[in-house]
């Protein structure tokens, strides 16, 4: 017994402790982020860069921890008083956590570090505020555009022309999108049943998350009033949005659509990040997506980015891996074609110092650079062709998602990842030093490109457009900067409201009741929940708007 007590006391005195305070002259801070795998490695590069430069100079060391369910873990650790000093959350949590006092107000810190409103695109900076106070800093961000499969459009060119549509461009209005979709829909009879084989378009893809709840943005709807005290689900705009969704179920038939959708749903997660992504497989000709889709195209179906590249350049890209250090110029030319010729590679001026010569070969969406020292390969690398130039080779295109309201253009739902400082963090100044470093143009643009997302900054560098993996980054960036780019509604219980809107979508698809009934049900429930969250009397704002009445 005495031994057990002694062992317990020894553990208490000498046992492990969280390493959160200064060790020597250096202050250790904890940075938790949701990114895992390659994305975590890329974030770690920023941490390493900070630790070896600004951190070294100012005596700050960042410990990076990648984890799942970061929102819950951040909240619980904040409540327990042992939070990370920097946490990488989603925009969904900003209002929810700020309203609970879980986040540190950042206005003063941000001002001192030059992270001012003018530096950011409007929609992202606004999304980081709650009641006029800044609680988060945008990290990588996104906007949503319409992706269209040019190849399917060409395969269906006759049908599209017969419907009076141009197969060489994306639809520009919602009415046009519906017509394109109907002309592209392909049915087959299998097992005695007529099945939808290829859909031109279907609303509410199973894996669009918040994007599905925000479909009404393209109809000009407001989901809540500006101060976030009233839910507005029964407006004519909301009615138009969900009636449009319902229209697809009515046109294609609810069972056929249910079967088609379930072919590429994967329970909670969806298949957008897998080789079964319906747009990549060719089951859907158009879909709303973020810039990240390029990462999955490059990983699972790179041919979509290389549909129109001359075969010799395509081969050259493949041969890049065969280049080995020590190979002679003749051997390299045998693989990649002649150097120093208008059709092949050519020397890149100025010469690399030290007698080395660098040659460049065009390879479709990439350019291959090979450095020779003493006539032998000493280094090789590839760089993207500028994004805009890559578009000519793509089998797909990106365009603003058409709006359902005449004159309402470049509408997009804009979302983001954010960095926050939990309110019980012990090293807030040091945490902000790191966030400011990570928000520097070179760092944030590199991270955004690596993650195949967008930059939150109001001005992008030319290098960013050159090196971004998405050929249509200009389309997505223009949408993000548009005055009609809209973030999440200003509701502190948005996760719950988003779930309810998900139900509205599901019920519309299943043709359960009328659109007005479905929206009225959701309005009542959402307002009741919001009243509860805001501590308002239970019957506040329970009157319905004109549509339902």
């Amino acid at each position, binding site marked *: *017994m005495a031994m057990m007590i002694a062992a317990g006391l020894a553990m208490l005195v000498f046992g492990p402790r969280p390493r959160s305070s200064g060790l020597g002259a250096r202050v250790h801070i904890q940075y938790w982020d949701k990114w895992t795998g390659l994305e975590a490695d890329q974030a770690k590069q920023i941490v390493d860069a900070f630790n070896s430069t600004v951190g070294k100079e100012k005596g700050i060391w960042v410990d990076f921890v990648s984890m799942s369910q970061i929102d819950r873990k951040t909240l619980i650790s904040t409540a327990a008083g042992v939070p990370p000093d920097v946490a990488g959350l989603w925009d969904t949590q900003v209002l929810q956590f700020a309203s609970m006092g879980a986040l540190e107000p950042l206005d003063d810190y941000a001002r001192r570090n030059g992270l001012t409103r003018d530096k950011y695109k409007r929609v992202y900076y606004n999304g980081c505020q709650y009641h006029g106070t800044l609680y988060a800093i945008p990290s990588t961000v996104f906007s949503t555009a319409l992706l269209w499969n040019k190849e399917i459009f060409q395969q269906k060119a006759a049908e599209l022309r017969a419907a009076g549509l141009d197969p060489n461009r994306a639809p520009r209005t919602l009415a046009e999108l519906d017509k394109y979709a109907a002309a592209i829909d392909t049915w087959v009879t299998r097992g005695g049943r007529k099945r939808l084989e290829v859909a031109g378009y279907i609303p509410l893809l199973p894996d669009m998350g918040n994007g599905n709840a925000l479909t009404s943005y393209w109809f000009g709807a407001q989901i809540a009033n500006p101060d976030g005290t009233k839910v507005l689900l029964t407006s004519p705009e909301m009615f138009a949005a969900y009636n449009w969704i319902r229209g697809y179920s009515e046109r294609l038939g609810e*069972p056929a659509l*249910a079967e088609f959708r*379930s*072919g590429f749903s*994967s*329970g909670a997660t969806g298949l957008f990040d897998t080789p079964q992504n319906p747009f990549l497989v060719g089951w859907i000709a158009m879909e709303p997506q973020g810039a990240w889709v390029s990462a999955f195209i490059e990983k699972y179906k790179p041919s979509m980015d290389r549909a129109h590249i001359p075969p010799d350049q395509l081969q050259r890209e493949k041969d890049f891996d065969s280049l080995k250090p020590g190979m002679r110029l003749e051997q390299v030319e045998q693989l990649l074609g002649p150097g120093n010729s208008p059709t092949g590679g050519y020397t890149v001026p100025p010469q690399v110092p030290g007698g080395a010569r660098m040659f460049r070969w065009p390879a479709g969406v990439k350019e291959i650079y090979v450095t020779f020292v003493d006539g032998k390969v000493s280094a090789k690398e590839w760089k993207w062709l500028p994004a805009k130039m890559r578009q000519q080779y793509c089998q797909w295109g990106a365009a603003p998602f058409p709006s359902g309201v005449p004159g309402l253009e470049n509408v997009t739902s804009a979302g983001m990842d954010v960095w926050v400082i939990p309110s019980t963090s012990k090293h807030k100044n040091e945490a902000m030093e790191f966030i400011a470093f990570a928000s520097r143009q070179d760092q944030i643009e590199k991270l955004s490109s690596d993650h195949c997302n967008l930059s939150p900054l109001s001005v992008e560098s030319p290098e960013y457009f050159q090196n971004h993996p998405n050929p249509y980054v200009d389309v997505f960036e223009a949408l993000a900067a548009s005055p009609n780019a809209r973030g999440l509604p200003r509701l502190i219980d948005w996760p719950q409201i988003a779930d309810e809107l998900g139900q509205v979508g599901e019920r519309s698809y299943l043709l359960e009741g009328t659109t007005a009934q479905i929206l009225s049900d959701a309005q009542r429930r959402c307002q009741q929940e919001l009243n*509860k969250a805001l501590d308002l009397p239970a019957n506040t704002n329970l009157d319905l708007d004109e549509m339902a009445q």
Partner: protein
Amino acid sequence: MNSEIRQFGKGVAFVSPWLIGFVAFTFLPIAVSFYFSLCKFDLLQPPRFIGARNYLDLLHDRVFWQATRNTFYYTAMVLPAGLLVSLGLAMLLNVQVPGRAIWRTVIFMPSLVPIVSSAMVWMWLLNPRLGLLNVLLMKMHVPGPPWLTDPRWAMPALALMSLWGVGNAVVIYLAGLQDVPIELYEAAELDGAGLLGRAWHVTIPLLSPVIFFNLVMAIIGTLQVFEIPYIMTNGGPARSTYFLSMYLYDNAFAYLQMGYASAMAWIMLLIVLALTGLAFWTSRSWVHYQGR
């Protein structure tokens, strides 16, 4: 007397690591969750006492009732099906047939597969476009349904999938079957009982304590079902597979309404207690313990 107290003290000291652990990590959280169920609590702000408000709100919460209905519906399907299938398999595996050990292993193996993995496999099996099940049905000219996206089929699909993991129950039944005295089968055979007669009059009564154990465990398990629907359907379509445990989880960790979630947890506990109590009450008439 002194020595008895000393002995008692030693006993307490030896069980104290468990006792401290139980009090700190089980009893106190349970007690505190009851207090939270009477509060508005979001983790960050101190809990604010609101009396029975959370329980009253639950009474008027249609999603709560829908989740309760779904949970009972699932239990009503899985409980008898699971008991019958596992008992039937155990009785078949108890028969002397060539390769019996292999059959037993095959039946037990799915229980060793992590739930997430088997859910992913089943999602592919049930995929209406590419899934094995619908491809086979199509070959027989039977149109397969969209299993997981049709509200009418999603729950039966989950129930079907739950039978995949009956291996544990089968092993317990098999162990119980080894305890059935062979003389009783011989006596029944002499009395003219056939295969079914021996199963009904000998096997089932003597196995009834094991059946009862599995029933109680199944009641608790099915009422708390979470992982499979969370992974396979996320509660959809249109909340047709949304269970009490999922609503509780969402309220606690997505909507951050810890008080409301705690109230729900206590109601779930009462439901489990009531059904388990019912099972115990009825057991007097159908569970037969050997030697009593």
